């Protein structure tokens, strides 16, 4: 858990020579702090346990490869959403960005690798720019992120429809093959998962990573300690757009086509994955590892419903119950954290 801004500021103000004596480790506090994440791990273990007892071959590399591919679009979308949630915002526009990304890919990608690579970069750049624009609008107009990104979602959706009114277009087969390629024994989605974790390990300790979390934790004190809120917003939503574009580029390896409406299916699940993983909707608290576990949980519920031979209607029911449990765990942790600060 990152230090809250109050703690950071307090430490900075403390004279250097009176270094505090090492405080006793507050085990109970630490446990409570991590409660939402631990609950997510427990739920994943439980789901995998039940799934593994009903289906053979669950504890295998094949299964990991398959499930990671199934969850990767959501994971990428939810990575961006996690950054926004840590900032204390929300990004609905990722739905529009994902749709737009898939339709641009499906209409522009060719068998020529360099053309396709160029367009992939353009899609990623577009994602960052549109996201940054969200951040700019939120800072400049002092509007609710919900409203701003709702508007951009709608605009991007419309543009996607203009480019490709119905599902279709085509994605070159070598791009589609990316998802099942197995460099060094693991499929590319599993490598992507590892890269995401590495990225996070690096990113959360960078200046901008700390600034985003500090701003999400307490905007006022972050501002007072010299953080540029406008720049934080720009980078936060820019990254969210970038990851949404990345999600689109991965999604087309699964669909082999563009779809002007497909992005909406990832908006709320991206928030749900983060919340299940213990990311607080109030900003400042959470970790990408939790979000990725949340995305696995949401994806594996589908597998579980399949092997249990129950009606697929149980899938949203189960997702909802899990979400509630997660929110409950988060709120307990949140309260405990507040008590300790006081």
């Amino acid at each position, binding site marked *: 858990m990152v230090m809250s801004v109050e703690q950071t500021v307090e430490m900075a103000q403390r004279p250097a020579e009176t270094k505090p004596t090492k405080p006793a480790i507050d085990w109970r506090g630490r446990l409570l702090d991590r409660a939402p994440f631990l609950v997510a791990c427990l739920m994943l273990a439980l789901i995998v346990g039940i799934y593994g007892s009903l289906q053979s071959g669950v504890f295998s590399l094949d299964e990991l490869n*398959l499930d990671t591919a*199934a969850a990767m*679009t*959501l994971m990428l979308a939810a990575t961006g959403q996690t950054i926004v949630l840590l900032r204390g915002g929300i990004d609905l526009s990722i739905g529009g960005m994902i749709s737009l990304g898939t339709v641009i890919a499906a209409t522009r990608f060719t068998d020529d690798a360099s053309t396709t690579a160029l367009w992939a970069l353009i899609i990623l750049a577009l994602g960052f720019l549109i996201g940054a624009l969200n951040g700019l609008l939120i800072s400049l107009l002092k509007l609710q992120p919900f409203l701003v990104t709702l508007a951009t979602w709608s605009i991007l959706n419309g543009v996607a429809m203009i480019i490709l*009114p*119905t*599902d*279709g*277009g085509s994605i070159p087969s070598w791009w*589609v093959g990316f998802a099942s390629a197995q460099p060094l024994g693991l499929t590319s989605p599993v490598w992507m998962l590892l890269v995401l974790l590495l990225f996070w390990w690096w990113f959360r300790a960078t200046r901008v990573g700390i600034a985003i979390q500090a701003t999400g934790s307490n905007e006022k004190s972050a501002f007072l300690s010299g953080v540029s809120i406008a720049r934080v917003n720009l980078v936060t939503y820019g990254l969210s757009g970038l990851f949404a574009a990345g999600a689109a580029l991965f*999604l087309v*390896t*699964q*669909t*082999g*086509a563009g*779809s002007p409406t*497909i992005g909406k*299916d*990832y908006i709320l699940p991206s928030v749900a994955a983060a919340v299940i993983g213990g990311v607080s909707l109030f900003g400042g608290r959470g970790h990408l590892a939790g979000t990725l576990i949340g995305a696995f949980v949401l*994806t594996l519920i*589908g*597998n579980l419903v*399949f*092997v249990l*031979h129950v*009606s*697929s*209607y149980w*899938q*949203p029911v189960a997702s909802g119950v899990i979400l509630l449990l997660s929110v409950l765990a988060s709120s307990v942790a949140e309260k405990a954290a507040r008590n300790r600060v006081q």
Partner: protein
Amino acid sequence: MKSLSRNIGFAAFAATMMAAGMQTGHAEDKKPYTIYLSNNFVGNDWRQQMERVATVSVNKGPLKGRVDLKIENVENTVQAQINSLNNIIRQKPDAILVDAGSDSALNPTIKKACDAGIVVISFDQVVTEPCAYAVASDWDRIPSVMAEWMATQLGGKGNIILDRGLAGAPISAQLQGGYEKVLAKYPDIKVVGYYNGNYALGPEQSGVAALLAANPKIDGIMTQGYGSGAIQALKDAGRPIVPVVGFSYNVAAVTCAQTQGAKCILGSNPAYLSSEAIKLAVDILDTGKKPAERSVSVKGDFVTTDPFESKLYPGTKMIKIAIGENAFPDQAPGLTLPITPDWVEITAAEAAGTK
């Protein structure tokens, strides 16, 4: 005509029974085929009837005991259907039937199933992946025959109004285009007004009512929906009941049959497309022979008060509307007619799930 179609029905029934008798011995020494049906959406009458009919058609008739049918519904997202299909592929079934949420976005997953040696048949909302078969209604034939019927009813002369369906829906444009293409051959038939019926009774009734008020002389109504909403609008306005074109929902057939002087033709996208897909899968698995074309068009019979011989599509079958036989006042209004393909006998109650 009526007795003729009855005789044909009986003959078909007898043939089915004989086939069933022959199959029993055959089926015993064979393990049933495992066939999955992946359906992306269950939120309307048609999809529910489609699933019930699929289940009934493997529990009686020639396919009895031959198929272990498992139905997997998903929550109307492409990702969910992809994940579900991946789960299905791992069970290594003999065949997968798909009513698809997207005509193209499932293609890589479907290709994976084909590569695993699974027979894949898309039906209703079909896919473009060449390795999968596509079982669907012939959407060129349906509007053409109905427009031809209207022109015949009007003697090639009169004012009609035309339903544009749902704005932006590809099927709406296809039906409207199909109607207009045939009507264009009759210079004395004039389309005097358009409305959007949105495939719901309310908009159909109000759309027709508004056009009736604006046009003192209307000789025919081409709906894309129920047709019964149009008839109700005519009754409410105290106007003569003119020939109406619509689709073969139970409520439409019952309204046509019970309204004095009503003349209707109802085109059908039969819910038993699922049964036809199952049968195709079993045929391919039994014989190892594949149909020459990947597209298989199912020709659902038209349901009409006034059967006629189509010149555009010679041999097109027409069923004369008869209460209790092919129109069921005691069943759900949204039931799609005709209920059963000719190779198995599915009852209205079975299709409606009331039995």
